């Protein structure tokens, strides 16, 4: 009994518990919505969302679609890392969505038009994302502009610019960009045999790389002087300043790294060849916003975001199996949004868990 108490008291355990409570409540509310729309199909509906690729018979095809979900998880992990990294320094990087769009645009342009090899595409798109982050950072540090509002404005600006940039490399008959296969083979990410393991040629080194980057971000934030300085700036800007840290530089550097992370995520996604950019799309890609969800669900921990990103992508992909004639396809978006909303109560949930433990002591 004593052991269990100290177990519950550990912050990491509390973070996981709080995340699980948010997930359960979110799924439950999603289920209630399904019940309201179509009671007889609701249970089947929520099951098919939660099962995702397990809707297929076990075996090769199941593994193949597991691979597809992983391919889409890696950009989400990077978007989440982008938001997480900035949040640790007290900045809310809602601009990740625009930086993601920018990264996609630059990566595809470099691959399709300039025929550059994949690593240059990734580096250049990271640079573009970083530049966007620097702009937000400079506005924040020197002009006191709220990073959320400038981020949103840049999201729309980036989206329209990317549409203009990619108009030159799109299919003549469809709104989508040309396929990398055949038009920019050098830009396709190598898979180092992972494609055979998953019998899915879209599975590339993006997946292990994104996990490595997550560990790297965790290391930088927790184990280096640089990370310590950034987090200190996040806790108290003025104290950091008086301790001799350059708080303005830290803000800009943080947002630049955040921007680069989100852009790398986009290049990982589009350079795997799993999807093409829709030129002329009028909404900012949801990936960046889902990154916010994954960040908070992951307990603001870079390692936690790996798991939360996977979960969010899992239910998003599960929507494919929802009966379109019975339910709207936005149900997983709804569940994700509810989970983020509930994440706002995480502090409260943790206090509850904490006081419960105190109550046991008494």
């Amino acid at each position: 009994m004593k052991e269990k108490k100290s177990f519950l008291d550990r912050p990491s355990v509390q973070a996981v518990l709080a995340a699980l409570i948010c997930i359960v409540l979110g799924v439950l509310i999603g289920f209630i919505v399904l019940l309201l729309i179509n009671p007889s199909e609701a249970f089947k509906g929520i099951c098919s969302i939660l099962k995702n690729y397990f809707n297929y018979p076990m075996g090769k095809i199941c593994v193949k679609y597991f691979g597809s979900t992983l391919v889409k998880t890696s950009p989400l992990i990077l978007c989440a890392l982008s938001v997480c990294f900035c949040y640790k320094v007290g900045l809310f990087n809602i601009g990740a969505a625009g930086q993601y769009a920018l990264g996609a645009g630059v990566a595809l342009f470099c691959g399709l038009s300039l025929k550059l090899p994949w690593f240059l595409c990734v580096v250049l798109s990271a640079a573009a994302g970083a530049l966007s982050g620097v702009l937000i950072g400079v506005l924040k540090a020197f002009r006191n502009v709220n990073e959320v509002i400038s981020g949103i404005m840049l999201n729309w600006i980036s989206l329209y610019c990317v549409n203009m940039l990619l108009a030159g490399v799109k299919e003549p008959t469809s709104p989508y960009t040309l396929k990398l296969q055949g038009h920019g083979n050098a830009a396709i990410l190598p898979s180092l045999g992972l494609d055979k393991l998953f019998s899915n040629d879209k599975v590339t080194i993006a997946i292990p790389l994104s996990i490595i980057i997550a560990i790297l971000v965790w290391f930088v934030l927790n184990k280096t002087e640089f990370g310590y300085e950034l987090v200190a700036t996040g806790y108290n800007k003025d104290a950091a300043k008086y301790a001799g840290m350059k708080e303005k530089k830290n803000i800009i550097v943080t947002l630049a790294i955040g921007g680069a992370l989100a852009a790398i995520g986009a290049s990982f996604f589009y350079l795997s060849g799993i999807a093409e950019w829709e030129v002329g799309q009028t909404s900012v890609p949801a990936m960046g916003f889902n990154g916010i969800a994954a960040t908070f669900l992951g307990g603001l921990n870079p390692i936690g975001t790996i798991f939360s990103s996977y979960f969010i992508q899992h239910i998003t992909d599960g929507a494919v199996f929802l009966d379109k004639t019975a339910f709207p396809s936005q149900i997983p978006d709804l569940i994700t949004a509810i989970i983020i909303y509930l994440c706002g109560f995480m502090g409260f949930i943790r206090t509850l868990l904490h006081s419960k433990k105190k109550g046991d002591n008494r």
Partner: protein
Amino acid sequence: MVLLLQYMLLFASVLALVALGGCFSEHSGIINLGLEGIMVVGALGGALVLKYMPVDVPSFITVIVTLVGAIAFGMLYSALLGVAAIHFNADQTLIGTAMNMLATAVSAVIVKAINLSVDSSDVSSVVYYIDNRPDLTVQIGGFEFNWFMLVAVVAVIAAYVVLYKTRFGLRLMACGENPQAANSVGIDVFKMRWAGVLISGMLGGLGGIAYITAGSSWTFENGVAGYGFLALAVMIFGQWKPHRIALAALLFGFFRSLGSVYSGIPLLASMNIPSTVYNLLPYIISLIVLAFSSKNSMAPKAEGIPYDKSTR
């Protein structure tokens, strides 16, 4: 030119209404980044009224019920922010973001569920209100007067009077500047913050329905293209003051309307600027404006900080 004026006034009305919503919320001490979502949900409320209202009802009643529908939905939705930010000390930026995502998802789900129940092959998220839309407008020569323009003017004047000339308004602003001091003289900070949030829900909802009724149908999957945030830029540029917000909204409305009508203005059409540039204008202008107006910000001092009685 008349068309330019018409679009400018309509978009300015939308931005002014929503910016005033943000203004009330922030003066009470709560940052409302969920205005975008409130606009979507308010628009849904109004659009459903317009869709189901019988065509033979007098237009005056249709307008009033539409306004009430948008206000009710907007206020109800803003309560999500109120509960989380006032009573549970939640991160207001996070909650606002969640509300924006939730609004698009919820309204798309609701509209799709309605469309599916009518026709199981209709998987769109479009609400049509072409039959009742003429009730919202009055033709004066070539100018299409929209009742929301009047609503916006009334809202600006009312906001000015309420904030600066009434006991309620001054108390509300006290809660955004120094809630501890306000509380010490007997003002209920929680109640005032709820008032601020609900008023922002009301005005945000009105702005939402004004925005979508520029056309005769709306696809709810699309949200409102960042207008909630443009409105926040208008609010900051307007230095949290109703009369300056009105002027800022007119300026932004002008740049937005250029994108809709530039092809009809010989001088602009002859310059051959791609339409994307016009689409970008409001966002670029707002970034520039923010860069120059945020430095000496008149933002309420205590905005964004949950009120904790024990810190008094």
